[in-house]
């Protein structure tokens, strides 16, 4: 599949934004300290911007962005429609939570729990949209949706960790939570890479349908490209993919694990040291963009059988 920049940006950025709430919930549940106003403002601003920018960029790949509102209507059958609808509903608990939390009004934990449920639902809809496409065998499995959810949680809660570190909030249990999330995510990812090696039951024999031992592609409909070949068929290079997988694992899993381990007992006193964890978060985000790019580039659409792919 062709990796569309706006879709990659949208799913990674808004997924991270929603993941911040999950991280924040555990952070607040594990230890209720009086967070400084700057901490609250910064987390609120970043999560809000990420979600809004992500959703806006998702409309960029549309042929008619001005008609995007129509996409809320078909929630009965379409996961894309459900995703749009739930993402808009999520703004209500989000804004309420920001208001209650920043002004220290009781009930913000309850609002955060509601917000987390809707955030997870939004990522769930995104994942389901891909996972229900039978035409792309490497997406059509039960691991895709959990991976989408875990990706959001991993990078989102890493962001909360980096801000904790900046403000010198040492929360021991939160550290353990984030390490467990990263390891689970890594295991999910490895199982996914093993799973997609399986051959799908759609092949050139079923595509053409003629009973013969040997069918091979002879000639395409034309010598040039067309919409289908540019959108759904791409040459994928295994060597490059493996290199990108490794880069992703190092950026999103290994570096954060190492740094959290190194920093767990450290009190950040210098400004540069305080910022370093935010830099680690940015690297993890870049890793996630690589992962999402891989998700597209290594998946094959069954229409490729009609084009000798």
């Amino acid at each position, binding site marked *: 599949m062709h990796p569309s920049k706006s879709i990659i940006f949208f799913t990674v950025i808004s997924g991270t934004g929603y993941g911040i709430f999950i991280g924040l919930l555990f952070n607040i549940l594990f230890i209720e300290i009086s967070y400084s106003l700057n901490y609250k403002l910064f987390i609120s601003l970043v999560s809000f911007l990420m979600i809004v920018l992500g959703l806006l960029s998702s409309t960029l790949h549309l042929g008619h962005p001005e008609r995007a509102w129509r996409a809320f209507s078909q929630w009965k059958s379409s996961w894309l429609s459900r995703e749009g609808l739930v993402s808009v509903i999520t703004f209500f608990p989000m804004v309420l939570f920001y208001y209650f939390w920043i002004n220290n009004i009781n009930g913000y934990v309850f609002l955060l729990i509601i917000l987390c449920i809707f955030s997870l639902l939004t990522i769930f809809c995104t994942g389901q949209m891909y996972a229900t496409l039978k035409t792309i065998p490497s997406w059509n499995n039960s691991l895709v949706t959990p991976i989408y959810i875990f990706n959001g949680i991993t990078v989102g809660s890493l962001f909360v960790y980096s801000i904790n570190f900046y403000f010198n909030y040492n929360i021991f249990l939160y550290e353990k939570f984030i390490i467990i999330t990263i390891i689970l995510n890594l295991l999910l990812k490895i199982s996914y890479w093993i799973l997609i090696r399986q051959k799908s039951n759609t092949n050139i024999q079923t595509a053409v349908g003629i009973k013969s031992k040997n069918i091979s592609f002879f000639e395409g409909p034309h010598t040039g490209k067309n919409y289908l070949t540019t959108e759904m068929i791409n040459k994928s290079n295994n060597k490059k993919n493996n290199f990108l997988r490794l880069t992703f694992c190092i950026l999103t899993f290994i570096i954060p694990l190492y740094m959290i381990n190194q920093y767990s007992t450290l009190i950040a006193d210098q400004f540069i040291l305080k910022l370093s964890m935010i830099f680690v978060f940015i690297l993890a985000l870049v890793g996630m963009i690589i992962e999402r790019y891989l998700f597209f580039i290594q998946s094959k659409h069954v229409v490729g059988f009609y*084009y000798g792919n």
Partner: protein
Amino acid sequence: MTELPKKTNKKLGLVIDLDICVGCHACAVSCKEWNTSGHSSPLHDVEPYGDDPTGVWFNRIHTFEVETEVRGSKTVHFPKSCLHCDDAPCVTVCPTGASYKRDEDGIVLVNAETCIGCKLCSWACPYGAREYDETAGVMKKCTLCVDKIYNENLPENERLPACVSSCPTGARSFGDLGDENSEVSKLVNEREGYNLMPEQDCKPLNKYLPPKSNKDLFNNEELKPVSKNNNFEDWINEVENASK
């Protein structure tokens, strides 16, 4: 609505005979000609005379080499357009309801007024039947010439999809596949017509008729070598000498 109708009154579709098709592309060209001024008009071309031309086509002819039961292989020309599936996944994924299947005849259409151009339907279709028109920003597709088959301004014998009326070999038939007694249904029964990618569970209406077996074409006699010489040059010399 993007929910599929529980039952359609008719199941209009095409039957394509791979035994007859010679791959002349007449169906694709006449499809483009009719539809560029029809329901989904225009079918844009981008850089038609440039180095890298592309454009919207509803019908395309692919060619495969198929090993035959006896001796060697044959070339099979394989025209493919929208199969107007009973369980059309392109319809249910549509977030706006622009993509729909008609109750009355089962034709799958796109409403260009409400399509947002998200392209998800083209991802959901296993057959590559959907064509994104980048100039118009909407998805387009084969309409089964809905503006021709019901067109009362045309004589009755011309009310056929453009691809069917233009096929010089009669490889394409059009009719109601829901009616067991229709000509197309009989043809499917007789020739063991089949569905493409049945494992994708789309229940396509269009059926394909397989090329006929070549078993009886040969009487199982061994082919004899035309020359003792294996070397091409020697063989040429042999032919030359024989003709002197």
